[in-house]
Every structure is written in C-alpha cells, then in structure tokens.
C-alpha cells in the first residue's frame, strides 16, 4: 500500500540509511503530495527521525537520492525548515525566546549582515502566531515543555519556508499546546505549505493528518490517512519482528560491509 503522487514536493528514491554501516532504513521509495499534513508513524527505533534527517541531508544516505520541489536539497535549503526534537538542545543555554526565534532568519541573512528591522518584525509575528509574544524577553530556561515547543515552532515559522519537517513536536506538551499547534499546522496547510511531522500517537494521528507514512525499518505504507490507517497495515508496522533483517544488519556492521557495492 504505497501510493505515489504526480508532481510530489518530496521524492525519496530507494533511500537506504545506515549508522555505522548497519542499515536502519532499507530502500525507502516515497512521494509526498504538496499542501498536505503528513504524519510519519511507527514504533520506537523504526527510523522515523532518521528518515526526515536523511531527507534533509543531515545524515548521509548509503544509497538513493532525495528531491525536494524536484531539485537536490542544496538548491532549495532556504525553502525548507526544520523543528528538531525538543530534547536535542540544552534549554539552559543563555538565550531569550526572541533570540531563538530570530535564528529562523539567519539562513536568509548570510555571514556578515545582522538582523534588520524586517527580520525582527517577522520574528515577532511568528511569536504572535504561537501566542507567545508576551514571552519574547523571557529566558528560555524558564519555559515549560509546551512553551519550549512553541518557541521552536515560531522559529520555523519565522523562516517562512514552503516545507516543514518536525521531529515529535507533540512529545511531552500539554493539551492546550497540542491543540494550538495542530490549529497552526492546519492554517499552514491552508496557505499551501507542506508539513511533515514525526508522530508516535496512533489515536490522534487519524484526526491530525491527511497523509500518513507508516515506517518500521522499511516503508510499510504511504497514502491518504483513511486508506493507510487500517488494522492490517498497522499490524504490519507494529507486529512481526524482522529477525532476518536485523541479523543481516548486524552482520554488515560486524564485517564492515558496504550496504551497497561501489560502482
């Protein structure tokens, strides 16, 4: 059950990603439609974060290629935004909420220039969108989990990109924040943006996303939510261990074998 679309925003072709030569994702073939809210779903260790990191070329892929808007990633960097996992940074870092949101403008700024008024306005506007304008001067170490997540979201918004990759934005946030975020994501979709979200909660997935990617070391399914979230496909994703696959992966690491032969 892997549906492909015409003129995809994201096209992943035969992507294999390895950590220390052990493949964690095998041969992913994927296309995503423009202007949709995409959920990437699967059990722990299924390679969900790995997939979006490899798509953005933060991890080097063992094989295959990725096209975004039909182009290699380096040519469209400024149209892409990323919301890393909240735990991936040190929230004790001495920075204010506004400082962090302003980082969203850095990509467009280049080396020598400092943020101008327009950048500051854009950052402030982004903060308003996540309803955090009152916290602009607040230090990030004083925020709650949900507020931290909103700040990260505001940073991505300030970038004004066309496609957003978000790694577990709903993890460890309060209900109010979760509702606020999903509202925001929907607004973004209305504006024609594409949002790819790594998500772990099956319950809410059906309600939130209009396209779902099921992942467990390989692509199990990709398609419109109602077609993908079926009992059978979910069992496929969450049940049934792939013992042979895991063993072969371990062997590849132990023998330092290349995942693909060099051409």
């Amino acid at each position, binding site marked *: *059950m*892997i549906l492909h679309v015409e003129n995809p925003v994201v096209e992943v072709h*035969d992507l*294999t990603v390895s950590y220390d030569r052990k493949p964690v994702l*095998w*041969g992913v*073939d994927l296309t995503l439609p423009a202007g949709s809210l995409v959920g990437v779903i699967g059990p722990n260790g299924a390679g969900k974060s790995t997939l979006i990191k490899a798509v953005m070329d933060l991890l080097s892929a063992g*094989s295959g290629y990725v096209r975004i808007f039909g182009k290699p990633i380096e040519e469209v960097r400024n149209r892409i935004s990323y919301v890393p996992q909240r735990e991936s940074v040190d929230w*004790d870092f001495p920075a204010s909420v506004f400082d962090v949101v302003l980082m969203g403008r850095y990509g467009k700024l280049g080396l020598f220039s400092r943020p101008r008024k327009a950048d500051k306005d854009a950052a402030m506007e982004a903060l308003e969108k996540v309803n955090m304008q009152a916290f602009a001067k607040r230090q990030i170490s004083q925020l709650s989990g949900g507020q931290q997540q909103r700040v990260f979201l505001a940073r991505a918004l300030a970038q004004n990109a066309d496609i957003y990759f978000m790694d577990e934005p709903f993890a460890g946030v309060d209900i109010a924040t979760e509702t606020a975020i999903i509202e925001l994501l929907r607004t973004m979709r209305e504006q024609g943006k594409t949002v790819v979200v790594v998500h772990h909660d099956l319950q809410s997935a059906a309600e939130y996303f209009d396209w779902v990617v099921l992942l467990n*070391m*390989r*692509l*199990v*399914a990709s398609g419109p939510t109602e077609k993908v979230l079926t009992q059978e496909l979910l069992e496929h994703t969450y049940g049934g261990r*792939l*013992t*042979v*696959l895991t*063993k*072969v992966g371990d*062997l*590849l690491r132990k*023998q*330092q*074998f*290349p*995942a*693909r*032969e*060099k051409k």
Partner: protein
Amino acid sequence: MNQFLEFFSFADANVRYVTLGSVLLASSSAVVGCFTLLRKRALVGDAVAHAVLPGVCLAFILSGTKNPLILLLGAFVTGWFSLIVIDFITSRSRIKEDTAIGLVLSVFFGIGILLLTSIQHSGNASQSGLDKFLFGKAASLVGEDLITFSIVAVLLLVTTLVFYKELMLLCFDQAYAKTIGFPVRTLELLLTTLTVLAVVVGIQAVGVVLMAAMLITPAAAARFWTDKLKLMLVIAALIGAFSGVAGAFVSYTAPAMPTGPWIVLIVSMIAIASFSFAPKKGWFSRIARQRRNRRLILEENLLKLLYHLGEQKQDFFSPRSLPNLLERRNIPKDQARTGLDKLRRQGYVEKSKEGWRLTTQGQKRGRRVVRLHRLWELYLTQYLNLASDHVHEDAETIEHIITPDLEQKLMEELNYPQLDPHSAKIP
C-alpha cells in the same frame, strides 16, 4: 648494546630504583585508570593531578618540613577535595562536568602556583623538594621513595582485586548496582580514593601535566586489544610497565633526557599503534576487512557471472572468454583478471585457450551466490514491500554476507520458494 646490557644488569642501584619505581607507578596507575576510563571519567585524573599542588604547598607551609609523608598527605587531601568539588558543582548547578573539571583543575593549580612562588620568594631554602611535584623527578628516585611506591602500588592492586566485581558493576551499570543493594556511594568514594592515591604518588615521577597520561593512555590502549575487563587490566598494567622500563632506559642512555615525558611519549606511541593496528578494533584492521570484503565481492561476482552464462546456455562447464564475461557486467579488465587468477588458485575456475570455465566446486559456489541473491530479492519484496525493480541493488551486497544459518531462516520465512520476484528459478 653495551649500554643495553649495563642497564638490564641493574647493577647500578640508581638504575634499579628508577626502573622499579617507574614500573610500579606506571602499572598501578594503569590498573586504576582502566576503571576511571570505563566510567567515562578519564579526565578527572587530570584534575586531581593539578589539584595536589596546593596541598603540597599548604602542607609545607603549615608543617615547615619537607617530610615526604606530610607532603603526600597534603597532596592527598586537596586531590580528594578537588573531586568532591567537581561533583558538587556538577550536581548542584547547571555547570556541565567538563567545564567543572577544567575550572577546578586550573583554579586549584593557580592557587598552588601562587603558594609555591610565594614560598620560593620568601627565600625558604628548603623548598627545593616541592617543585618535583610539578615536573616529576623519576630520574632521581631513591630507595626511600621506592618503599612508599611499593606500598601504594601493592595497596592499589590488592584493593582492585578484592573489590573487582563491585568496581566492575559500578562502571558498567550504576543504577543496577544500586538496586541490588550495593553501597554505590561508598564504592564511588573507594574509586575516587584509589585514583587520588595513584595520582599523588605517580606525580612525583612524571609531573602534573603528564600524570593524566599514566591513568588514561594505557587503559585506552588496552581497551583496543580485548573485550574482557580482567584481560584489559593485565594488558594495561603490562603496557604501563613496559613504558616505565623503556622511559628509564632512554634517560639512562641520554642523561639529559627527562624520564617522565619519555614514559608518556612511549606509552602514547603504544596507544596510537593500538588504535591503528589492534586486531578487530584497530583502524587498519577495519580498513583491511573492508578490502577483504571488496575482494570477496569481486570473486563471487565473477563466479556468479560464469554461473549466469551457464544457466543461460544450459551448459555450466564450457569455457567463456573474458570479453564475453565482461560484456554482461562492467568490471574493470585488470581487476577481473586478478580475481579470476585468484579463483583459479583456489580451484574454483580453470583456464584454457578458449577462456575460463567453472569447476564443479566453482559451479556450486556460484550457484549459492545466485540463490542467495534471488532469495534476498524475494525477501525484500515480500517483507519490505520494495518494488521488484529496486531489490536487485540491495541483493547485490547481501548475497555475499548471508551465513548458512541465515539462509536456513530465510528459507523458512519465505516458505521454501521456487521462483524469485522476476520469476527466475531459485537454484
């Protein structure tokens, strides 16, 4: 050569002291170092080494004597205190551990230097013994030092042996150690004390800065030779001992040479050699393994090629010419030739005027490769939902790595199939 014999006859009392002292120090600190390394706290040794200086100076100021025992006691106290401070800062503020280590070592050392220079400037004639804590004086060890060293070394070794399993568990899984009722705090203190003891004594031989190497480097090197902790301790001790002897020898042959830095230089070279050449874990062995893999892939691909041709023509044992082979698959000509030559020597192919032909043995191996290839393609399409036109590339590698065990398992999971996804027969 003469010097070599002279040195190893140990006739000279001085040589005896220096060598024995260096060996004792180096090996006992290496053993303690293994545990701190495995606790991922290798650099605390460095902090302790720097932190003993103010202790030595304070002990001198307070007692007014150069009595080595009192100085050692002072060193021990501040060394120990520095570790407590590091723990305190890390657990009670948002300062991270490496910052705390850097902070404590440099500040303690600064205090030490301030006191030391103050003592020097005050013209106290008997201060001359203090700066051996700074640079180490392995070359001028005397019998008295040796007795202290031996006692401490034996103490360290015996303690690690007695508490071997407790320390091992502490390093491996502290939380678990706690749940089964080990006195984790006490064990931590024990390890801290051992580290400080090793440093306080060792520092007189190699000096403040290089002491860290005596703890870290032999342990880091030993880690590359074994996965067993017991063996690692022994290897680390041996590496330490060897560099102790070698360092003493160098400074014996060239008296201007400082013993401590030479010990460290030698132990570092051993460590770097271990990182590079150790079997299994070393850098080169990984590269060698990768090259071996490439060779294996090439050879099996050639066999597969011959098998494919045989399958096509329904005749496995006729000779095929090299160009005939290479038009099916793009292998550089010279590589193909070397590969075929190797296969000939192993008895998988034979060479005749018309070209290369498989032997029965070669046909068997070629068949296995082709079979694994097709099995894996089938597995990928069935279990991973990969499109059948994408699986070939993956199978190209995996076919070389599957063990008979895995092959059996694959057969079971695929329910003993006959055909691959491209409807070719699985031989």
